[in-house]
């Protein structure tokens, strides 16, 4: 079971990656190989086995609702590529293309 050209294009679009024709062909082959490899698992009989989202037998790990001082705006913005008026400044946001 491989992956089609269209699916590679769709995934690239979702990840905001602009790929060339050569790259699309390359990744189509690589992704198909990975999926095929992973696909061997489907040969196992999983009848009656609950889907596993977490492999560790841990649950309800929580913290008390107690304030920890924040780092302050100056430190928060220190690594920002652009900032202004105490805000992170980001390039113009374009709406999702249909």
């Amino acid at each position, binding site marked *: 079971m491989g992956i089609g050209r269209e699916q590679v294009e*769709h995934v690239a679009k*979702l990840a*905001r990656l602009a790929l060339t024709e050569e790259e699309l062909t390359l990744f189509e082959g690589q992704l198909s190989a990975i999926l095929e490899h992973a696909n061997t698992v489907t040969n196992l009989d999983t009848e009656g086995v609950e889907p596993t*989202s*977490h492999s*560790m037998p*841990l*649950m*309800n*790990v*929580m*913290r*008390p*609702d*107690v*304030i*920890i001082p*924040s*780092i*302050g*705006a100056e430190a*928060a*913005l220190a690594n920002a590529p652009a900032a*202004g*008026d*105490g*805000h*992170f*400044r*980001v*390039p*113009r*946001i374009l*709406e*999702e293309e*249909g």
Partner: protein
Amino acid sequence: MSTTEAPDLVTTIGLEVHVELKTSTKMFCGCPVGFGGEPNTRVCPVCLGHPGTLPTMNEKAVEYTTKIAMALGCDIAPRSIFHRKNYFYPDMPKNYQISQYDLPVGERGSLEVEVDGEFYTVGITRAHLEEDTGKSIHVGGGGRIHDADYSLEDFNRAGTPLVEIVSEPDITSPAIARAYATELRAILEYLGVSDVRMEEGSMRVDANISVAPPGERGKKVEIKNMNSLRSVYRALEYEERRQREVLRAGGTVTQSTRHWDEKAAKTKELRTKEEAFDYRYFPEPDLVPLEPAVEWLRQLREEQPELPIERAKRYERKLGLTPYDAGVLRSTKALGDLFEEALASAKKADAKQVSNWVTNDLMSVLAAVPEGTKNPPLTGSNLAELVDMVAEGALSKSQGQQVLTKMVETGLGAREIAEESGIKQVSDEGALEEAIDAALAANPDVAERLRSGDNKPFGFLMGEVMKATKGQGNPKVVSGLIRRKLIHPD
């Protein structure tokens, strides 16, 4: 009912309500939660999405969400997990929002609402826990996202615990939708889990509405930006009418998202989505599942407060109050609590009298106080003192209203204010009779006319006596004395 047209078209509405929880800290880090403030001051590496940081669940937020789900009659999931909802928008620094997907905290609940004496049950699909986003300011191009030059991001709100409550599409009119949102807000306020301030965005309502002939499915239109309960009603009423007109004219409704413009009183179409977003949900690997212990759930159930609709029913059945009075008293938890405290400490006044003071007089005084009904600035025992003073005749009704206004302004007790301001009611017959005689002496024709059976000057005489006593004469005693003296002098 808003629909006055022939019932050949059916309206179907579902509501999606988001509420910010009133915890001290954010969902996955210890940054404080708050409204307003300098931008990016309530942030840390976790809520800024720095590489290598890990989220940890806030136990209070989990508790509050479970309480909400319980109050809405949901089944509490024995196991629930978080998912990542991936999207490209700068209001979440991680590029995904931690939310819940197929295993939310609560599912399959319901809410009973009342509209004009009719009861409706609205199904609750789910209640799930997620994190709120940051806030964007679009700069340039008139502040609109499409034409802006750039945007500024404030992450103070990013990571605030947020509960999403989704209703079934069981709502058939804008009036029921408003009643649902009102009831839900009251329940959340009673639970003490959220500030539920729509104007500040701690409660946000989105709606899906479609209109179609019975048995058919209409095109869903999503409405956003309804910032008050009133705009929920107005926006849905507008949209219902608009869709009906389109269908009547033989047109088709386009599936779209529309924005409610309060000033223009219209919904306006946003960019139409041709393709549903693909959020690529997957289980959040950095968080472990929630598996609430049976004992913990039992304890939470015990802590659940009486819900507003139960309280109203109790007031009607046990105290004999009218549905209207019970409805006002239960509208906020604080108002009902104040009423009950006052009733418990009143020595003379009964439930009906105390209720009248709250629903009529106090409500009109509180109208001028911001958040007054959520946080009335007087105690139940002070209110009881006032109501008793009027019931005993120490104050007239209108003097009582004067004192009540001052109580709300100053926070002082009724007796204290009455004494300091010299507000009292004179019921002493001797003193009042003197005042009546003086008024009659100054207006000799009045006595003559009253004796001869002409009742017209009665009001005038009452007024003169009240003036002479500086408004302190007990009107009942004064009118009784006048009657005895002149009208039935036996």
